[in-house]
């Protein structure tokens, strides 16, 4: 049997194959195995209904955040329209399911494809625009899509929204949170694996090259604009896919949640998690969703305690304030995000107890 690698104090690789592995040590693989078992085997059974709802939301947002990180963190194209692309996916799935009669397992990926097409259209300005200018162009995308979702009543139901029928997969009703948990996290694991694969092949290398120096990327034989569009497409596919899951999970959608605030939240998630890091996107989502829930519970609690009701009403906007503060503090103290914190913790363990 192969000798297992736990805490190597140097590079002991003996084949180029080993350099391509996702986990460089068996220790990493072991932990990944353990966490997957915990995630699928334990979490849905010990969580209360409320916790499970939060966890499911984390899973849905994590899929979209991984996609957004491919676009912003790896390709360096800032998109302020991701909330809208998420909405396009949600609406596409809802319309496919209600008007087209598509089953769940077809509606979700098709919604992803629709969203990818829309994302590519709003990625077209990236041919000419960079950085902040592109950011503003995608902001236009956000407002156009929001407008269409509200105004095209024949298709989207306007402000009333759409009621989505409960999803069934292979004859199993996904109406309850626990069943849907498995669908969300199955998709999450698959999509994350695909993102990691893209990054370690020529596609991801081309994305990173475009982010770091598009002139040199061109000199390496990379057609810059098609790759930017590809990045927009992949990232919007992730957003649309997540949006479709969201639509089936909440069972009723209105244009309201898919506003600019959602786009900003996505960007906050990947900045706090770590730009250019797949695990970072997931950490960021966990952080933001948890923070949101904690803050809303805190304000609610203060409201209900008689003594502090008056105070609570005045400090209710504090939620947004704390939210902004968290982002600012992260940018100042750990600009590389939670992924960097995680890396430091790991390397401390690797060298423990001889940290020199």
């Amino acid at each position, binding site marked *: 049997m192969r000798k297992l690698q736990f805490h190597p104090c140097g590079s002991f690789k003996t084949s180029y194959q080993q350099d391509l592995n996702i986990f460089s040590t068996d220790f990493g693989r072991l932990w990944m195995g353990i966490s997957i078992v915990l995630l699928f085997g334990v979490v849905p059974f010990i969580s209360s209904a409320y916790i499970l709802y939060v966890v499911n939301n984390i899973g849905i947002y994590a899929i979209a955040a991984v996609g957004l990180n491919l676009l912003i963190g790896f390709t360096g194209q800032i998109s302020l329209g991701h909330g809208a692309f998420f909405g396009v996916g949600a609406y596409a799935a809802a319309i496919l399911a209600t008007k087209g009669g598509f089953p769940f397992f077809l509606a979700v990926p098709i919604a992803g494809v629709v969203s990818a097409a829309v994302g590519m259209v709003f990625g077209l300005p990236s041919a000419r625009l960079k950085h902040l200018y592109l950011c503003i162009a995608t902001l236009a995308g956000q407002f156009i899509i929001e407008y269409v979702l509200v105004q095209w009543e024949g298709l989207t139901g306007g402000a009333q929204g759409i009621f989505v029928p409960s999803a069934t997969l292979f004859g199993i009703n996904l109406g309850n949170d626990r069943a849907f948990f498995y669908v969300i996290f199955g998709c999450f694991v698959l999509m994350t694996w695909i993102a990691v694969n893209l990054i370690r*092949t020529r596609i991801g290398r081309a994305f990173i090259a475009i982010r770091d120096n598009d002139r040199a990327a061109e*000199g390496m034989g990379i057609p810059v604009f098609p790759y930017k569009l590809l990045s927009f497409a992949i990232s919007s596919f992730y957003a649309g896919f997540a949006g479709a899951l969201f639509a089936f999970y909440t069972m009723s959608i209105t244009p309201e949640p898919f506003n600019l605030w959602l786009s900003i939240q996505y960007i906050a998630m990947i900045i706090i998690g770590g730009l250019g890091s797949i695990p970072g996107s997931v950490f960021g989502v966990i952080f933001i969703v948890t923070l949101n829930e904690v803050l809303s519970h805190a304000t609610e609690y203060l409201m209900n305690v008689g003594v502090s009701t008056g105070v609570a009403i005045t400090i209710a906007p504090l939620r947004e304030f704390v939210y902004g503060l968290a982002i600012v503090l992260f940018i100042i103290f750990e600009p590389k995000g939670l992924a960097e914190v995680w890396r430091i913790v790991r390397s401390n363990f690797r060298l423990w107890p001889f940290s020199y």
Partner: protein
Amino acid sequence: MKAFRGEPSIFTSARPEDRRAELEVKNLTLKFGGITALSKIDLNVRDGELVSIIGPNGAGKTSLLNSITGYYKPQEGQISFNGQDVIGLSTHHLTRIGIGRTYQNIELFPGMTVLSNMLLARHVHCGYHVGKASLFLKSVREEEVRHRKILEELIDFLEMQAIRKQLVGSLPYGMRKRVELGRALALQPRLLVLDEPFAGMTLEEKEDMVRFLVELNEAWNQTMILVEHDMSIVMSISKRVAVFDFGVKIAEGSPDFVQNHPQVIKAYLGDTSKIE
């Protein structure tokens, strides 16, 4: 000439017709508004040649390289590569048909390791598409390993074994130039275009670089265009030298011919006839 630094398979196993490079620049004129950067330039590079371009600052050397590699679009004239008209083709297309280059102000990716920088250059030689890449199929894995082997041979050739996993941003300047040469070679170019590869190097680094270039040219028959200011290097390794001044080619020929050409002396040293 005997090869001294291993036998990189991109040279040994390639058929001669896959490495053939014939560049013909005819009557090339490049203008930026009212400024004429290049006027009526003719230059031929034949297969297996090492042609150097020299000239004072602002003579148009880098402008010519940028025109050849597609960064600038000249207004008049032709550039043909292996019989194909290449004016108007984009840089990435030119890279694909075999024109690889290095840059005057190193354009590496500082946040990546030496190895990832070089892997990037294998982009056009990777055959798989997005679908296969996303599933990381066995064929993708095998192809990645194949490219890694090719790169290791180049790393041996350029004696960069010790730095292959280091970030390019942490390397000294001379080493970065060497990495950039390695990355350009990984493109597997028919025509290698080098823009001042010796700038800012110490003497030892220059000596190493000269050895690499001479071996590439003599043992592996690599066609090259070299723009350089270090006259002793240019004169000792080039087969042909073209001299530019103010966007005009003022002389072309063997190093000896060029060194004694009156106009060249005038361009570099000024008009000596008035000093009496």
